[in-house]
């Protein structure tokens, strides 16, 4: 008991009594023990010779990778454009599919909370839980390699993300505005267009640019599995050990991501 009395009868207050304090220390001890055990498992599975050797190898590769082969840039403009297209069109396609899913998933707009809402939530979870690289692997196998497979991979992966954030925004709207529009005798679709859509527009715009920004990053690696874009060049350069080209590609990817981030920050700042 945190409040007790000492011998002279004065009240003493402590945050925890003795047993609670002991329990906390025991919990810390258990945590450290688990960490040590895991560390040992990893250590046993590691070939430490390679790790000690790592700085030398890294320096070796670094030496061969520098300077970047700038002339290779001529061959990168096309794939870079493909990458941007995959990200942008993929995001648009995802939004087109995410909006209805979000309205079906939001508690206050779903036509049926017992049947349709779980289906919508399942779509959200399913598309979100599969990484876009894995979507790309599957789609390359199904529809063949190329930019289109990458575009679809980006789109599928983004549906869940966008729909989830959007349905949360829909659930947080001010219901009295919806009530007021309903009270005018507006139809269901009019209530949506006047009472709900204006309220979620800022969230929608924010989510779109945020996802576009993420997709630029994701689309740069999709080429590794044959889904087109700059990742394809990265993979072939890696395979032929053309390290100066790899450096250039990494610089280009970095620049693309930074520019994408800058654009999305500007757009979000303008909306919110």
């Amino acid at each position, binding site marked *: 008991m945190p409040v007790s009395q000492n011998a002279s009868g004065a009240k003493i207050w402590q945050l925890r009594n003795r047993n609670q304090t002991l329990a906390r220390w025991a919990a810390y001890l258990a945590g450290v023990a688990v960490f040590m055990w895991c560390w040992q498992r990893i250590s046993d599975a590691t070939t430490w010779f390679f790790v000690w050797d790592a700085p030398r190898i890294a320096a070796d590769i670094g030496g061969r990778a520098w300077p970047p082969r700038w002339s290779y840039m001529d061959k990168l403009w096309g794939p870079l454009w493909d990458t941007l297209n995959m990200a942008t069109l993929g995001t648009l396609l995802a939004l087109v599919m995410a909006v209805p899913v979000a309205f079906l998933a939001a508690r206050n707009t779903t036509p049926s909370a017992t049947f349709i809402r779980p289906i919508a939530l399942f779509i959200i979870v399913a598309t979100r839980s599969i990484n876009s690289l894995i979507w790309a692997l599957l789609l390359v196998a199904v529809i063949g390699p190329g930019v289109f497979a990458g575009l679809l991979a980006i789109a599928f992966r983004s549906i869940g993300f966008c729909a989830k954030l959007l349905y949360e925004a829909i659930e947080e709207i001010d219901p*009295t*505005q919806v009530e*007021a529009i309903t*009270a*005018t*005798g507006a139809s269901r*679709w009019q209530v949506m267009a006047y009472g709900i859509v204006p309220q979620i527009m800022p969230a929608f715009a924010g989510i779109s640019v945020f996802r576009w920004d993420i997709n630029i990053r994701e689309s740069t690696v999709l080429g590794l599995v044959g889904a087109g874009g700059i990742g394809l060049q990265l993979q072939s350069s890696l395979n032929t050990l053309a390290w100066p080209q790899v450096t250039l590609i990494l610089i280009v990817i970095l620049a693309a991501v930074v520019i994408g981030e800058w654009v999305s920050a500007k757009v979000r700042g303008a909306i919110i």
Partner: protein
Amino acid sequence: MLELKNLSKTYRTGDKALQNVTLTVPKGQVMALIGPSGAGKSTLIRCINRLVEPTSGSVILDGTDVTALGSGALRKMRRKMGMIFQQYALVERLTVMENVLSGRLGYVGFWRSYFRKYPQADVDEAFRLLDRVGLLAMADKRADELSGGQRQRVGIARALIQNPRLLLVDEPTASLDPKTSRQIMRLICELCAERDLAAVINIHDVALAQMFVERIVGLKAGELAFDGKPVEMTEDVLTNIYGEEDWHATIREVDDEDAEAEEPVA
């Protein structure tokens, strides 16, 4: 014109918000509905246009039983009932003009309303109403740029452009300062008189109600507890509705009107 017959509402939680309320509001009468928080005032108003489905009983407007209507007919019926809200309930991110025109949603089709192609007659009426409530210059402002009193005026214009037969007014002054409250109440009552509209006004401020309306109905725990003229509102009645309290100051103006003629009543 408006008739409530044995209207009851029991929420799913078991709360009996309304119990056997029977009430008639004749054409053109402005009626105030008072009662403590939780007495069922908001529920009563929302049962009339079925934003809340009543559990039993009927609401009859101009001879039509509102509670029996299907969704299409209910939408047509809602056009006849303009509603004004406590927190104004304007669509904050739309302009004043869009908010006023949204009162016509029950009359125009989806695509017309979506592309904001309202009939010219509606636009003319919107300008006339904005002029009437003193906000003509604000037509292009966004609703969230306005002050509380201005927003409530937009809310009034939105209700009136429906060309309603009845106004349902839910705590119109609860978020406003005392002066603006009076102006808004005066405006609502004047407009009702101009257009011969009936109105049911939920209101907390008993003195304000006495100042403007011709009839006061008191609700207590979902049941009718008083129905009479403002002058019949005595301390005993208030004690019955709200519970024991010194009510002298609350209804002073009615009491003192005869006794102290030298004190001007605002």
